[in-house]
């Protein structure tokens, strides 16, 4: 499944933006509108997304299809909105480092303003993207534990992986693949990513919260 946000942000914020999702084209009159949609969709449940899509005059078919979607698909759709809200300022910045800082070893919280656990997205460290872990990362994407994000901006194209909002637990046997018969390499990579995420979030929590 692929979800895309298309449009030309750098020329002017008045330009139209579109979200391509399955065969739905969700049109927004301008980028400000899209941004406020991403802000309102933070922490929203399936039902609230339904109401929001009415408020923003989105495709009727999409609105009806939302209620039939599973939690993983809804999580991915919201992930795209969250990531857009997170990198919006970096999209128009010609400096490569501002984007690299945002989409590697960092996290976004899907704040829901309730006293229940807050879900989050975590971007993996850039050291895993040097090509040595490609097979294992692909396997983790197959298991729905990771998702791919590609961003094209003024500064160039960026590819990264992130842990989605809803990641189902995969038991130890599922990690085996053709390239990795015992599944040990993939599993230890996954443990490392989880540790990185824990360190990143707990250091933020301990030092800045």
């Amino acid at each position, binding site marked *: 499944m692929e979800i895309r946000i298309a449009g030309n942000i750098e020329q002017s914020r008045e330009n139209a933006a579109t979200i391509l999702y399955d065969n739905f084209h969700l049109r927004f009159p301008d980028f400000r509108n899209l941004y406020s949609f991403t802000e309102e969709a933070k922490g929203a449940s399936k039902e609230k997304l339904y109401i929001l899509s009415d408020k923003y005059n989105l495709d009727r078919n999409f609105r009806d299809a939302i209620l039939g979607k599973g*939690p993983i698909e809804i999580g991915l759709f919201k992930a795209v909105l969250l990531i857009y809200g997170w990198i919006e300022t970096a999209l128009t910045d010609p400096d490569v480092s501002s984007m690299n800082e945002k989409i590697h070893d960092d996290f976004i919280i899907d704040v829901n303003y309730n006293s229940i656990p807050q879900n989050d997205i975590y971007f993996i460290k850039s050291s895993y993207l040097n090509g040595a872990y490609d097979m294992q990362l692909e396997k983790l994407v197959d298991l729905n*534990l990771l998702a791919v994000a590609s961003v094209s901006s003024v500064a160039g194209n960026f590819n990264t992986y992130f842990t989605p909002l809803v990641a189902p*637990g995969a038991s130890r046997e599922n990690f085996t693949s053709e390239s990795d018969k015992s599944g040990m390499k993939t599993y230890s990579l996954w443990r490392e990513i989880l540790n990185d995420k824990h360190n990143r979030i707990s250091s933020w929590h301990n030092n800045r919260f």
Partner: protein
Amino acid sequence: MVFDHTVAWSYFGGFASLALTVLVIFLKDNYKRDTQRKVLEKLYHTSPEEIGNIDAKLDIDGFKSPNVFQIAAMWGVQPLFILCFLNIPTLGGEYWVIVVFILILITLLHEFYSADRFSGKLLYQLFILSLWISLFLFNNKIAKIKGQEKITSKSEVLK
């Protein structure tokens, strides 16, 4: 080798305080994991594809099953620091002040950086353990030298 009684008792006290900390954190983490497991088991009936394997899901959500050695390495530096700090007036001496100064640096580094990062690693756990043992032995040695100095000074007074 016979140990100095005061030093041995003080280190036993430090060890007991560490053991209590580890016990409390271990039980707390286990309790959290168990309550979260019950929540997930309820959710599993409504949407199994969201939860998947419950144990793996608990790991993803950050409710890890606690590891005694990891917790001990994480909380093991503070009691040792307090022990050595309290021993300054009784043991005195330049060497001991240097030891405490080095320990201050290790404690700072541990609290701000390495505790979160490396306490799960075997090598770091061994490092903390060796710190305890070596400081215990060193403390004993200094206590013995001090004791001998006291005896000689007393005998000089008697003369």
